């Protein structure tokens, strides 16, 4: 009885465990392609992973062939000599000089055309375009070699990005009409690690897909970049519309070839850096063009705070905005950048600004309107008074381009009209003459005064609170230290400025009362003529009683005589 049970158990084991394995193995053996004898013979050696060849350029060429991959490739039925025509079972050159991998691959790829007719290769436009190029990449760079699959299988087996990368992982390049060469190589590891790493290629390149690859031509790399900037808009519409309001976009519109666009700041879209919590990205991107400002920023309290890991420590974009960057010279918005972090500045400054009997926040604002933050807070800056020409009517700067039209002159003629004696220093009378000239031409102008630092580097060298200037007399006394550098500024349409040296005393001249009527600093913009008038008035005031008393003394005999006469009558 026990024997019967044993037999039944063995039978069941065979039926449920061994039989399926047998059936599967039989099936595999039945469907697996069989390599040719020649191939099996070659693989006898070339299945060794360590088999390599040193090339003339010192590159190491692996001679290993993955047998399994080859068995599963579309070429499995072809013998090795079918492609490697100079090698056969009978003839295997021991020493074959090969210069480089590139040369080896190019030569090996020639074999492809033995079977693949030109018509077949030219079917797809991009394929047709690529194979006619003088420096076309070889077949194996896109399609692979021993593991080559049919296009349909490759298309089906690969994800979208992977499919694109099958060609673009190679050092592909496009030649522009102007002869420039643009790399269209995509580094897969950079792409995967970039902020766009999880996106499929077609998310941005919507005209492309596994089945569609138009052939495009561009005049220049710049044109290509600008057209591709549109791709960013799809996912980043806010940043794009902000960019279109920026000084960078103004430069771009003016045709400046160096005007930055998305990729100029952020780098290639395929290796786009992720935003880092330490904000270094905000520095490194701007430093590409504004490197000269970096050392002054590094000396600032802002950078010290950043290095200390303070969360709110500002980098470039914290003050200047990331995309809607405006010219700091044309607007006061940079102050808003400061106020984004430094709240209640009116109250803070009124702790030491004095305006009895009650110091209102407007008093601090009156200072903020004409003094840049950096003018007091920058370490050892060379402050100056900048008198920028504005239109009273529009409240906007009168640009150099507008002046040329109004005065019907050229830039040299304009300078002659401002600096009439061409000595390089604008005097008060010259300011008045220019103001009058514009008035005659129907433009009521005004020179808006502002105290600022001398250059952009100083503007970034912001010191600590203790280092800020709080000494009133630096500005508020005749001949004040901060009023020794005066400049006349003419704005240009692109945000740049023409800065002309003015005589330090221009603000003390009666000639500038009207042209600079909105800029005043107690003590330092005193009008000299009024000082003289004051002295004359004092002398006159004292002279009246002295003169009158003198006359009364001189005429006292007259009064005595008269008194005596009256007395006689009496």
């Amino acid at each position, binding site marked *: 009885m026990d024997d019967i049970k044993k037999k039944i158990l063995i039978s069941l084991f065979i039926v449920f465990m061994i039989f399926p394995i047998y059936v599967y193995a039989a099936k595999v053996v039945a469907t697996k392609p069989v390599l040719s004898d020649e191939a099996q013979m070659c693989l006898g050696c070339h299945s060794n992973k360590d088999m390599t060849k040193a090339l003339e350029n010192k590159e190491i060429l692996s001679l290993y062939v993955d047998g399994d991959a080859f068995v599963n490739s579309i070429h499995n039925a072809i013998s090795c000599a079918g492609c490697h025509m100079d090698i056969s079972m009978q003839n295997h050159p021991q020493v074959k000089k090969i210069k480089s991998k590139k040369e080896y691959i190019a030569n090996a790829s020639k074999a492809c055309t033995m079977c693949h007719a030109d018509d077949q290769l030219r079917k797809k436009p991009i394929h047709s375009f690529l194979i006619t190029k003088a420096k076309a990449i070889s077949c194996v760079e896109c399609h692979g070699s021993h593991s080559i699959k049919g296009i349909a299988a490759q298309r089906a087996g690969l994800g979208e990005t992977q499919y694109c990368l099958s060609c673009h992982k190679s050092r592909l390049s496009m030649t522009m009409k102007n002869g420039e060469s643009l790399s269209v190589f995509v580094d897969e590891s950079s792409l995967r690690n970039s902020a766009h790493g999880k996106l499929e290629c077609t998310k941005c390149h919507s005209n492309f897909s596994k089945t569609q690859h138009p052939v495009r031509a561009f005049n220049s790399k710049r044109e290509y970049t600008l057209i591709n900037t549109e791709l960013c808009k799809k996912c980043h519409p806010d940043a794009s519309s902000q960019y279109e309001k920026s000084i960078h976009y103004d430069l771009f519109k003016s045709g400046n070839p160096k005007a930055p666009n998305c990729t100029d700041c952020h780098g290639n879209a395929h290796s786009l850096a992720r935003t880092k919590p330490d904000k270094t990205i905000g520095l490194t991107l701007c430093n590409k063009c504004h490197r000269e400002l970096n050392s002054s920023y590094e000396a600032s309290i802002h950078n010290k705070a950043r290095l200390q890991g303070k969360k709110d420590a500002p980098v470039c974009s914290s003050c200047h905005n990331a995309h809607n960057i405006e010219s700091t010279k044309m607007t006061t918005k940079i102050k808003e950048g400061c106020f984004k972090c430094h709240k209640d500045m009116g109250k803070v400054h009124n702790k030491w600004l004095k305006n009895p009997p009650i110091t209102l926040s407007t*008093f601090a604002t009156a200072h903020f309107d004409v003094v840049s933050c950096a003018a007091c807070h920058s370490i050892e800056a060379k402050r100056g008074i900048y008198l920028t020409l504005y239109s009273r009517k529009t409240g906007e700067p009168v640009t150099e381009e507008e002046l040329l039209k109004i005065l019907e002159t050229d830039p040299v003629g304009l300078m002659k009209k401002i600096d009439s004696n061409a000595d390089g220093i604008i005097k008060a009378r010259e300011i008045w003459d220019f103001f009058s000239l514009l008035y005659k031409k129907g433009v009521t102008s005004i020179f808006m005064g502002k105290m600022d630092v001398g250059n952009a580097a100083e503007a970034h060298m912001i010191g600590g609170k203790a280092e800020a200037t709080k000494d009133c007399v630096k500005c508020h006394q005749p001949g004040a230290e901060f009023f020794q550098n005066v400049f006349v500024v003419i704005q240009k349409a692109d945000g740049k400025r023409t800065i002309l040296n003015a005589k330090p005393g221009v603000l003390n001249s009666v000639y500038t*009362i009207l042209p600079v009527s909105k800029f005043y600093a107690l003590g330092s913009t005193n009008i000299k003529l009024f000082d003289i008038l004051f002295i004359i*008035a004092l002398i006159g005031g004292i002279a009246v009683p002295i003169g009158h008393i003198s006359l009364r003394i001189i005429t006292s005999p007259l*009064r005595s005589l008269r008194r005596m006469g009256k007395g006689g009558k009496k």
Partner: protein
Amino acid sequence: MKKIYLHPLPIRIWHWVNAGGFIILILTGAQMRFSNVFNLFSFETAVDIHSWTGFILLANYFIWLLYYLLTFKIKIYIPPLHHPIEFTKKALRQAKFYGWGIMVGDENPHHSTPDNKFNPMQQVSYLMIMVALIPVQIITGLLLWDPKLFSPVVNLIGGIQIADMIHVLLFIFFSAFIIVHFYLATLGHTTFAHIIAMFSGYEEEYEEHEEHGGHAEEHSHQEKTE
């Protein structure tokens, strides 16, 4: 000799506060303007004193204004412009007195009464000062005190530099005026007569003048007092 109650208490208070205030404002104003020439106070102290005093005088101005408006005595400042020729003659006579008559012993043609306090020259100048110059000085002072707070007014007049120009020109005028004013105050029947009257309120006037009214009599009385 009789005493005329010429200066009521509110006006005396207003006057002396104003007088002291003017001197302080002129000194501190000059200090701010000429800190490179003399140094009575630091810049901050000068600004402090100047601003406080300015506001005190602003309030003080309303003592004067309210007193004269509420008592209807403001008319003593109004020249009788409906008699322009007569008024001009009187003014010229007054000028002639200060320029010549006072030298030869003529009597002051004007005799102050509470209803006719000022001679024609005083009337014109004080009217200008009280209703135009001081208010303008106060307003421009306020504009300079906080230009941002009063920016609509500052812009209306063309800019803060214009406000400063007006303020400074008036400062120059008042500086000269206060010297001359002080000297004229000594031209009463005694050197300190007007000044004492400005403290006591009572101006001394001889009764004979009231009775006879003759020029010769008045003259002799005046001379006696000199």
